[in-house]
């Protein structure tokens, strides 16, 4: 698979602090890649180097097939970027900002650009605020504007530094839905501390800790596609029910975990979610007390890899 981003031996030193210590990773084209790591791990520094905002002390990187060595203008015309703390012309209106950005990335009639601006405003739920000045926006609204200016040029690659920070739950949900919708059109490389969000939409992860990549690869490699569930039943003959379940072709293994608790493994999480509950409730006299995923979550993996950030 072609890499949208390829980084080799990237280093960045600020006087006595070595922010990046030989970073190597790849982001496959067409993927949604979550970039994870504790505060100060080097996520923003890496993204800023990729965007040409700061220069690496050593190493090499390529974005969309172009080395970082050149002026990068043509490459940047194919990238949408949301910095960690987005800042725009404070006295400009939201619509003017988007029009300004659109004209940097797109060529077309004024009417066509305006239509694209309106479409983007609608996509991020900013239509009602189109004529509001940037300085009057709340933090969450500013982040939405940041996301909208990143996607308005219809880029091939989207680099987002913590797109969900400062958003309320509804806003977070909208951002996730938006990224999910964009996955067919562009590669998305985004950093986040909200591991549930990353787990929901990312298909690839890169984990960085103290300036070094500690893990990277497809999400399935770590979390697996297996559907492992813990089932707790209130039933006289729980064993009988579970024996019946054992004969189902989509069940791999059943392991007793306690008096009324069993661990059920299936080859695929989707199958488990669809069939397991249906099977259980179809048995008269069985009351399902609990049915919860028992697989390793991204948070489990993350804590294994980087531990508690306070330990650093």
């Amino acid at each position: 698979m072609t890499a949208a981003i390829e980084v080799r031996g990237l280093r960045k030193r600020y006087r006595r602090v070595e922010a990046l210590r030989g970073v190597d990773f790849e982001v496959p084209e067409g993927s949604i890649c979550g970039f994870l790591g504790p505060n100060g791990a080097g996520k923003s520094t890496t993204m800023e180097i990729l965007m040409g905002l700061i220069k690496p002390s050593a190493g090499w990187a390529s974005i969309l097939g172009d080395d970082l060595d050149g002026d990068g203008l043509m490459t940047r015309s194919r990238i949408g970027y949301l910095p960690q703390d987005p800042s725009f012309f404070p006295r400009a209106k939201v619509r003017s900002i988007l029009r300004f950005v659109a004209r940097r990335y797109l060529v077309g009639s004024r009417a066509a650009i305006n239509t694209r601006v309106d479409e983007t405003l609608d996509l991020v739920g900013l239509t009602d605020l189109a004529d509001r000045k940037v300085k009057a926006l709340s933090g969450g609204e500013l982040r939405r504007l940041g996301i909208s200016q990143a996607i308005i040029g219809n880029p091939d690659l989207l680099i987002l530094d913590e797109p969900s920070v400062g958003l309320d739950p509804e806003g977070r949900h909208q951002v996730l839905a938006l990224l999910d919708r964009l996955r067919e059109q562009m590669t998305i490389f985004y950093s986040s501390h909200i591991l549930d969000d990353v787990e929901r939409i990312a298909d690839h992860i890169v984990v960085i800790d103290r300036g070094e990549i500690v893990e990277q690869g497809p999400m399935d490699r770590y979390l697996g596609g297996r559907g492992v569930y813990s089932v707790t039943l209130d039933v006289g003959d729980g064993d009988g029910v579970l024996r019946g379940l054992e004969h189902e072709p989509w069940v791999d293994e059943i392991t007793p975990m306690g008096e009324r608790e069993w661990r059920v493994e299936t080859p695929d999480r989707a199958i488990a979610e669809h069939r397991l509950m249906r099977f259980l409730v179809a048995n008269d006299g069985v009351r399902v007390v609990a049915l919860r995923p028992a697989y390793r979550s991204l948070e489990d993996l993350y804590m294994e890899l980087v531990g508690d950030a306070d330990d650093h």
Partner: protein
Amino acid sequence: MTTDAGTITSVEKVGPMQGLGGLIGVDLRVWFPLRTVLMVVVGLIIFGFMYLPWSAAPHPSVDPGFGFLFLGFLSVWSAVMLISAASFSEGAVLGEINRGTAGWLAAMPIRRASVIVAKFATAAVGYAVIIAVTGTLVYPILAGAVDRGGTGFRATVVVEVTQSPIGMWGRFADLPEFGNYLGMLAAIWAAVVFVVAAMMLLGTFLRSRTAVFGLGMMLVGLIVGGAIFGGSSVSATPAGAVWSVLQIAWGNDVALLTPIMSTLLLSIIVLGAAVWSFDRRELA
């Protein structure tokens, strides 16, 4: 990509000053109308302070001479223009860097040089308008005070309108002809433009706006000091541009072209250094 209003395509080539037009459009809104109107009003207030004591002089025998009025106005106004250039420009680059706007712009397909050149060009145009408008508004009143401006701006109009007793004071020193007067304004503008370029350069490598402003004010001090005390030895410098203006106001015959051209050339060199420095500045 197609929208309801037609087809739009991605940018397929980048020019040597990619993004300049858009940035000039943005920066012009910073200068027009607020800053330009403000600075024209400030100029007229300064002129008013210089002019009114003469027009209200209680005794016709007190005649400090027109040359003094003219020189006073041009000195104070030039200094104010230079100070305002340092004040308005101190945050032009560093403010954008600290706020994060420069990083936002640099992450787009925009050449960093365009950011600097756009700010410089709009400031240069802003000050050209400010100096031309203020100077042109002031000139007929000065001409009126002289009572023989020789450019069509006759004193009688002003005196009749303002009922000023200034005409009673007799003839003052000759006011430079309007063309020469425009040359004096151009020399002030050139010095101001140099300060703007220098502030841009300082903003690209310093990290404190206070330091940028402090050094900018020191530069203004050097220019004003050089204009007062430097004499002809500074004629090919920004201080020389202001010095030439004051010399002409005093009635001396000095050339304007050399200080204007050398100051503009210096400004372009300093601007080039600012572009070079900004290209290497980390915008995290």
